[in-house]
């Protein structure tokens, strides 16, 4: 790869422009309420109070969000990976129809889904539970994950699989011992999307986990600062900052895998 060191300052500028709203968020999180609407570029009326409030109130919600995020990732992969393998490599009848249905599934507005889920959950007792929310959040990611993994797995050379079958491996073994390890990159990518989408989900959390007390995700915890006539923007922004840190770290670390994994198989299309 050619080196292009001139790109570094340009990239920094571009990133700064892109992230300016985030700078604004940090700015507000460090400003006293009275000065928040002034529009100062730097937090002149500086305070760390908001962070104090957040750290004393929001940590349980953050922990719940992490648990839900991980749960969503596991559930999504558990459903999507075998299905993708079946669609890509096994003679599943009606594969095209299923692909079409997957695209359609992503078009259903979340509002429609959440109202439907409420009735179901109420009847089977999944309301206000973490597993229930994990199930709901996974619906955001599963169709996309299936599409992504199918595209990748379609690109796995047939010979690799045949060789294993010749050696007497069952289909399940082929899947678990060969296909899954090879698909590592795209599975990590799918996991990233699933985690991020469940991390920022608000609609499902507010419809299905209202009464969960401390076992609610951070998107609901933020609503503690939105009262009927009074909203506290400082703590809200501080919560957003604190909530973004683990996810940001995750992103930067996972970048490496994501770039290699997203569409390795799609070029074959």
């Amino acid at each position: 790869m050619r080196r292009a060191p001139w790109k570094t300052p340009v990239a920094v500028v571009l990133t700064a422009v892109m992230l300016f709203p985030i700078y604004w968020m940090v700015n507000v999180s460090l400003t006293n309420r009275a000065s928040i609407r002034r529009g100062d570029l730097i937090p002149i009326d500086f305070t760390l109070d908001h962070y104090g409030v957040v750290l004393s109130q929001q940590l349980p919600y953050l922990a719940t969000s992490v648990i839900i995020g991980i749960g969503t990732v596991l559930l999504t992969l558990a459903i999507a990976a075998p299905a993708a393998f079946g669609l890509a490599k096994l003679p599943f009848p009606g594969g095209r129809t299923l692909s079409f249905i997957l695209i359609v599934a992503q078009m259903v507005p979340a509002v429609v889904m959440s109202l439907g889920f409420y009735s179901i959950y109420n009847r089977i007792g999944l309301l206000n539970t973490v597993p229930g929310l994990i199930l709901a959040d996974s619906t955001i990611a599963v169709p996309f994950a299936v599409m992504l993994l199918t595209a990748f797995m379609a690109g796995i050379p047939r010979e690799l699989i045949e060789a294993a079958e010749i050696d007497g491996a069952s289909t399940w073994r082929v899947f678990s011992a060969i296909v899954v390890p090879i698909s590592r990159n795209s599975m990590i990518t799918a996991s990233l999307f699933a985690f991020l989408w469940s991390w920022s989900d608000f609609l499902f959390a507010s419809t299905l986990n209202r009464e969960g007390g401390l076992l609610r995700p951070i998107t609901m915890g933020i609503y503690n600062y939105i009262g009927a006539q009074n909203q506290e923007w400082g703590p809200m922004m501080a919560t957003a900052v604190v909530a973004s840190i683990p996810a940001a770290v995750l992103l930067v670390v996972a970048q490496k895998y994501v770039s290699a994994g997203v569409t390795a198989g799609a070029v074959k299309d």
Partner: protein
Amino acid sequence: MTKSPGRRVSAGVALAACMALAACTTPQPAAPSASGEATKGTTTADIKFWDPYPQRTDGSDWDKLVKACAPQGSTITRTSAPQSDLFNQLTTAVKEGNAPDIVVLDNPMMPEAVSSGLVATAKQANIDTTGVDANLMGPGIVNGEAYGVPFGSNALGLYYNVDLLKKAGVDPASITSWDALNAAIGKVAAAGGKGITFSGVTGEEGVFQFLPWFWGAGANLNDISSDQSVSAGQLISDWIGKGWAPKSAVTDNQSAAWDLFLTGKYGFAENGSWFASAAAQAKFKIGVLAIPSKAGGVAPVPTGGEFAVAPVQAKDADNHYANAAAVIKCLTDGDAAMKTNETLGYLSAKADVRAAQVKANPVWEPWVKSVEGAQGRTTELGAKYVEVSSQLSEAIQGALNAAGDANAVKSAFAAAAGK
């Protein structure tokens, strides 16, 4: 190639089947019964309490007060959500048969809640409504029957920045009509300050803020395109046009409008009594006036505050209503009324408790007249208010966007009423 027409046919059949299924499926016949008597039931171990104060988190004064009201042997679980969310959640909960025991509902939602079969009568839930002021009880009385009881009320007033007004040479006591108010704002603007903040956001909140001007001009909710109504719209539109009010009023809610006022640059803020104690602790001196009417005098403000109600229950209604009776009694009986209102930052709905509040805390003094003169939004229109409110909201948005253009304001109101 032979596959494709076949597949399209099958997709078409699937879609048609889906639609047919939908058409033939009768919606779930949910019929939570409105029967049940509190006096016939006993309190249960778990009591669910819903209110629209999410900012009052676990461990806050209000939270502790509510939970302390649990009857012997019971515990209260309290959840909060913003008001329209709360109403929708109540609707789904009643439909699915797992409604909470007590809900605190915004007063203009009462007639619709009643007509949708969501709440039980005060009699059924054994809720005591004696001593409550008539104007505050009004929204909760539908067809002569009382549903629930209000703890107290908040009211809208005109906060002002004492120093800015002094600097501009304005005497707050002289602001008793629209002309006087406009003159005062003009003087403040000339002296280098900005004018007035208020909330014009879409929805009930913006309408709530507009009503003192609307009623102050002599308009009536039965006809929102009347000349009086348009003149109220023109008033706020001119403020935007002259730069006396921030353009963000179009999207600001009351809290955002308050934040702007707190920057100290604005002379006036139309906002509610819930900020009264915050105002007393602000960095600059803040005074309060009653909102003036057009011709002169105090404008009627809409009744604020919420009603504590017992939702309709599908099963064990007697016990659930008994829960409601116990908790509401605990929050509103005798001395408890004062504590509840002080914790919420409201003025009590009962005159005697109100007087005691004012005596104990002079911050409430300027608000008493407004609360006593407050008008219910739904008292005349009942459940039809919701439709009128959304029309008025569109008119307000149109007026604010017009920024002073008189023709645009007039047509905005006409269009909104025509819809």
